[in-house]
């Protein structure tokens, strides 16, 4: 166990100088700044906003999320009113009827009142009425989710794995991982399941979570229309964040993903180019392509021998699925390790050499016998050859 360095005066004063923070907050921010050194990721230290972070539930971007927030809003108002209705009388009572210990002996006890039927009836009926304000919108929203994909909806299969996400687009013949690409303003019907243990699929800004269950006939569904682009000229799409929210083992905390919303034509180009073979240009990429042969037992890249191997494995009886995520568009992905690291060469090499140092318990074999040159070659192949323009 490494000790926490809670009080690092030099850093604190530096921070105060650079960011001219109010002194009173200095200590708290110094605590957070000290995290930087030990950072798992390169996420730049910045003073995160207190509200409106990437996983916030309040900025509902879909109608589904706004429906939920409507119920939440109504309920919050009722809750605050009830809290006031309890706390104000409570505080008044405590203030009004307090007695000093030493005066007590001279006081006769107050009148022994045992109850009041009218009052009891009143505060039995009022909650019933208040609850209706919550119940009616609740029930309206529950029944909004369809059981079957509505006509025109794009179907996306979401499959949870320890600890990464697989996304399949049956109509487009696409299988990808950890990056969910969606066209803007399009109805999407998610079919959610798990390959191993229970996970839970959640993109907070798009609405509530749905559990991914293992087993047959236990698929869950989720339907909504994807949000419009905030900036209609956005190139490369707009990024939302998601995460697994059901304890699913050792690295549950590191099972993140990103949902990227594209303009329709950009999404179409992405879908069209997705399954094209990688473009192997440079010498290191060629070496990397050769070295990838040992990766293809677990990973597939469309348009390469690894895809044929996958087909063979799936045609066996019983079919054998590959254990690792599909890497067809790896070069275009922003992160690796299911959203835990930025997709940089340094991180890639660390991941291949020692995946467990980034994600405890990850099932990938550490390739720690590869030379630095070999590692850089594989990195070049995966990071550049598979980065197809769309």
């Amino acid at each position, binding site marked *: 166990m490494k000790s926490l360095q809670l009080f690092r005066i030099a850093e604190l004063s530096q921070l105060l100088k650079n960011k001219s923070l109010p002194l009173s907050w200095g200590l708290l921010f110094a605590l957070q700044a000290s995290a930087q050194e030990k950072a798992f990721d390169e996420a730049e230290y910045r003073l995160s906003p207190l509200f*409106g972070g990437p996983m916030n539930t309040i900025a509902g971007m879909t109608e589904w999320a706004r429906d939920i927030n409507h119920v*939440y809003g109504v*309920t919050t108002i009722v809750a605050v009113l009830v809290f006031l209705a309890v706390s104000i009388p409570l505080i008044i009572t405590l203030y009004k009827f307090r007695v000093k210990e030493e005066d007590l002996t001279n006081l006769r006890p107050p009148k022994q009142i045992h109850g009041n039927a009218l009052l009891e009836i009143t505060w039995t009926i009022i909650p019933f009425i208040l609850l209706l304000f919550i119940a009616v919108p*609740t029930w309206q929203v*529950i029944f909004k989710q369809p059981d079957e994909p509505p006509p025109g909806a794009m179907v996306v299969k979401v499959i949870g794995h320890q600890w990464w996400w697989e996304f399949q687009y049956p109509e487009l013949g696409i299988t990808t991982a950890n990056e969910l690409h969606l066209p803007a303003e399009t109805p999407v019907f998610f079919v959610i399941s798990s390959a191993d243990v229970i996970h839970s699929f*959640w993109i*907070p800004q798009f609405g509530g979570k*749905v559990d991914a269950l293992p087993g047959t006939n236990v698929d869950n569904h989720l339907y909504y229309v994807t949000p419009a682009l905030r900036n209609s000229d956005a190139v490369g799409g707009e990024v939302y964040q998601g995460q697994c929210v059901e304890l699913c083992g050792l690295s549950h*905390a590191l099972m993140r993903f990103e949902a990227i919303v594209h303009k329709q034509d950009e999404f179409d180009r992405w879908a069209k180019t997705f399954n094209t073979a990688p473009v192997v240009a440079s010498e290191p990429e060629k070496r990397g392509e050769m070295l990838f042969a040992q990766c293809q037992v677990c990973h597939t890249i469309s348009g390469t021998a690894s895809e044929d191997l996958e087909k063979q494995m799936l045609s066996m009886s019983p079919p054998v699925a590959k254990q690792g995520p599909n890497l067809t568009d790896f070069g275009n992905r922003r992160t690796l390790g299911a959203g835990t690291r930025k997709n940089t060469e340094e991180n890639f090499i660390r991941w291949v050499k020692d995946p467990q140092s980034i994600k405890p*318990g990850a099932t990938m074999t550490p390739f720690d016998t590869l030379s630095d040159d070999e590692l850089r070659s594989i990195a070049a192949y995966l990071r550049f050859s598979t980065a197809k323009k769309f």
Partner: protein
Amino acid sequence: MAKNLPRTGIISWLTTVDHKRIGIMYAVTALIFLLFGGTEAMLMRTQLIIPNNNFLSAGTFNGLVTLHGTTMIFLFVMPLSAAFFNYLTPLMIGAADVAFPRLNALSYWIFLFGGLLLNFSFVTGLLPDGGWFNYANLTGKQYSPSHAIDFWLLGVQVVGLASLIAAVNFFVTILNMRCKGMTLLKMPIFVWTTLVTQVLLILSLPVITVALFMMTFDRTFGTGFFDPGAGGQVIMWQHLFWIFGHPEVYILILPAMGMVSEILPTFSRKPLFGYSVMVYSSCAIGFLGFAVWAHHMFTTGLGPWAQALFSAATMLIAVPTGVKIFNWISTLWGGQLRFTTAMLFAVSFIAMFTMGGLSGIMHSSPPIDYQHQDSYFVVAHFHYVLYGGAVMALFGGIFYWFPKVTGYYLSETLGKIQFWLYMFGFNMTFFPMHFMGLEGMPRRIFTYASDQGWNFWNVLSSLGAYTTAIGGIVFFVNIFWSLKSGKKASHDCWDGRTLEWTLSSPPPEYNFAIDPEVRSLDDWWHQKYDGEGNKRTARVQPDVDPSTKHVPNPSFWPMVLAFGILVLASAPFFDAQGIPLALAGVVIMLVATYGWSFEEA
């Protein structure tokens, strides 16, 4: 043999069947487990104080998450409540002991051994890491191959057995051993909530017992109840767990409500407002508690109709709960309020529990739950209910009855310091968790990235947790200081209303020298004051020669029998080699049962 066992010293504690001593043993054990659970919480809050921290490993953190929840529920709040049931129920109903004194001792020893079995995981380094709900199939042999999960399964199984035995005991005691004149609606309210709690335990514990057996069989013998690969259903575990798990929430909170309902009248010098309505609402809460389990499963794909019905049933619980809250406030209204530490804790219970109840109503609505489920908002919610609610009330109970149990008041000064540290620290820890949840921070994550907007709230929360820890230290100091040099307490040290205050502090082993007889609710109060509030002479219970009173004989057998159960429960850890151990456990149990049966009670 039993008659000749000593009545003082260490042996007397190991063999005691006196409900008061067993109550004290429950309380001491529960408070020691509180130190475990509290330390686990502090370690977790230290890990989460900054993003990307590596103070704890992922495995240790998941283990602490599991053990903190399990310890606080099964080894702290439940046994501390059991301590109060044990100590107070016979005194409040004017009985000499519980109905089955040796069974009572058996409950304690089984509980202790179960708790030790669970925590033995620390010695082996195999911390159970499936969360306090231990969801299948993560906890199956395939995904949790070590014996870590077995510590949880068997530990909880053994502890549950203790609660089940105790529940039958108190149920029978309350129904059969009330003193003359004490009809059901003249029982102190704490006895009522105890009774309802026992009914909940008797009906819900068998469900978890069966579920635990099923999962133990899955893991030990390869049955496939919860294994989808073998045609089992993972969701079945969740149903079974929560059919127990939701009544469990009321098992934790009802005794606390009972204590608050005793403390508020005493320090307001007024009877509990709407006593009979409080009784009915306790029963209603207990009844509805069995019809709401699936609200823990709104995101598992129950379908809209099930969600609509379970959400409606859940909302209904708000009605009897709301009635209770307003009755407590009405109890205070018009009273003469004395702000002792016990009273402060009881009043804070009303406020904190209301907060937790209101966020609970939010989660009764499935759409809101879709967003809040498994986020920190839920962590905030149930800590407001179980910590701000149950635990605050239990501390109130400790301050209120400590002088009765030990003969010494707890220091009021230290008590008030502890109270304010708790109030401040508690709210600082858990109120920010609402915001963390709204900002999408999932539960049970050992780390988080620094760009999520969760940093500030986590710092606040951890600092709050340390504040409470200081409050906890003050509490333990208070106990030791007060036992050594506290103010001595008389029979009726708070000007109480119920029968235990007619006894000396601490009460004699035989409890009542003269069999009490009651004519009304709060009979002791009415003996002390006439209708106009004028004081009149009331007689406390005299002390008599103990040899003239029959008390049950001490016995070693409950401990031996409990030990046999522990040996049996240890067998699965040794796989096939465990069979002789299992047989040894059964033999010990049979010998103990035989000895027990032929021993003079």
